[in-house]
């Protein structure tokens, strides 16, 4: 079985570190982490991920805009996306789902259960 490849875009480096440990050590995923949408857009094609895990609130380019731009790239139209957001407004969650997100994970997230949450969301979708 090949390792599931996740592109994680998160501007907070501490959270990046925690998510990396969680996704690689506990979840057993292969992870590419980027600190901005711009960086993600330039590196994503070489990585060819199976899933986007996107932080919502980031300077310059917010998560939803990152997703819209990723979708424009060849071969990424149908890649599933999961958002992580600290804003728990219901309409935002609805909006993100409308954008094609298979799941919206609220911050603070639990690094122990994060891999399971991702697997569940993928199996449902």
């Amino acid at each position, binding site marked *: 079985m090949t390792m599931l490849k996740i592109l994680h875009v998160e501007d*907070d480096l*501490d*959270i990046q*570190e*925690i*998510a990396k*440990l*969680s996704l690689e*050590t*506990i979840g057993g995923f292969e992870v590419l982490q980027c600190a901005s949408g711009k960086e993600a857009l330039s590196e994503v094609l070489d990585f060819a991920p199976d899933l986007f895990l996107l932080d919502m*609130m980031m300077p310059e380019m917010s998560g939803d805009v990152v997703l819209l731009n990723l979708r424009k790239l060849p071969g990424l139209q149908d890649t599933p996306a999961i958002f992580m957001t*600290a*804003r*728990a*407004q*219901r*309409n935002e969650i609805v909006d993100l789902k409308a954008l094609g997100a298979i799941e919206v994970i609220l*911050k*603070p*997230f*639990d*690094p*122990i259960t994060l891999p399971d949450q991702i697997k569940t969301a993928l199996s449902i979708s």
Partner: protein
Amino acid sequence: MGQDNEKAINKPFTISTICLGRDVIVMKMKQFQGKKYSIGFRYALALIIVPLASPVVVSFIQNATAISSTTLGPISILLLTLAYAWCIWSIRNSPEFGPSEEEKTAYQIKALNDHSIICMTDEHGTITYVNDKFLKTTGYSRDELLGENLTILLPTSIVALYDFARQFVLEGNTWNGEVRMKGKDGQNIWTHSTVAPQIDKAGKVIGTIAIQTDTTQSKIAASEKTMREAFHLLHDEVYMFEADTLRYVYLNQAAMDRCGWNKTTYRKKTLIDKRRELNKDEIFNSADFYDRARPLIDGEVDEIEFILEDDIQVSEVKLQLIQPQNGPSHFISIRRDISERRAFEQTKNDFISTVSHELRTPVTSIKGALGLVLSGATGELHDKTQKMLDIAYRNSDRLTLLINDILDLEKIAAGQMELNIETVNLTELISDSIAANKSYAARLNVSFVGVGLEQKAEGCCDSDRVFQIMNNLLSNAAKFSKKNGEVIVTLSDMGDRICISVEDFGKGIPEEAQSSIFDRFTQADASDRREKGGTGLGLSIVKALVESQNGSIYFTSEVGKGTKFSFELPKIGKTKIKNPTIGLMVAAE
């Protein structure tokens, strides 16, 4: 001098004598006008002067005619009687004489009865007499009033004033003042009243008589004037237009300013004119308006509320239909500029959003890092380290809860808690919430018992928020239960509402803490927070959530026996259309 000549002279003399007599009497009358001479005295005056003049008259007639004394006797008496009668008649009809005292009194009483509402009562306030105008004004029949106490005509708020006035009059005084009465149909009747005592021959007060002038019309006119003046000064735009023609009958200054009309021009305009002039909307017609105002016309709602947005401002419009019993119906619409409020709400919304992000980001790192370390993902931990990290982790958890709760409260207070009110199957929802909290309760050796969960119960509410309320109440009940205790969850149908209660048999809330149990950061016992966890915000959120869904919450508690929290939710929503996107812009304009 020949007989013919004598005749010619005597005749006019006779007549002039009678006229003289009359004039003298009239002159005397004039002289006595305004003096306190009785009618009898004046008549006596006539009776003395006429008989004194009569022998003179008779002798003149005798001299002037050839009539014998025997014939002349009765004729002269007849003539004298006629002269006397004419004399009296002319006195009575002379403008100087005027009506008799009796007639004057009768006229006054008639005028008084036409003008005033008159009512007499005995000393106990029981009605003994009312005039016709009283009946016409109040709408009661005489039978309905006589024998009743006057208080049946008075609003309860002025009974105390009435008692005071009645006592004052019964002491022999006359009371003057404004009195509001209630008619048979409950209508307000404003009167200016003079209440005087009725005094019997022995000088004892035996009752009261009230003479009242109906001032309702002028009162209404005055209050309408005041109201219109107040309307005129409002910053909000006020439009009032006829329901059948949609023609404007009133615009306040702000409304006139928007339309560019003045007091004379707006009366010629209709809602449709305004729409066409201001919005250049050619296709809009009155049928469109009536379609949109249908819920008001059909009486389904009391008010239609909507938001209008244009390039310049955001306005909130409220449309109502006024249908008086007698008189034409009118629509009244009030348009308020809420641009500033919107801007403020936006700022606050942005603030809440930013704070939640800024606070949650570091907490995410702290909690995440601690969680990973504690899970052993980074290697084995020394016991003491584990213990310390446990404390740190537990408190980062609490910090997360606190942030969530504060933000929830802020959102509710700012009216930004999004509510998705719909018909919800409460039976299912309550069962789900019990299932969701089961494992938490099991850790505390507490079990949930559902009562009434077999019946179908639907409420008008937000399912997520009710779930949040239940989570709070259930976890609280489990937390404060004794070991191996039970928590009873009851669902009951209250007619137009559904009641859900959560009852524990734990230590109960001390009486002194009961009044502040819904306040922020309150727990019955300060040591509870550390021992039982929780932020002390849960119940204030629960209360705010219940109330924002038009529900109510209450509790009963006894120390040592337990606590029962109950909340009620309506089965049907409020009868008020609130839809910002309804696009009913026409209605207001």
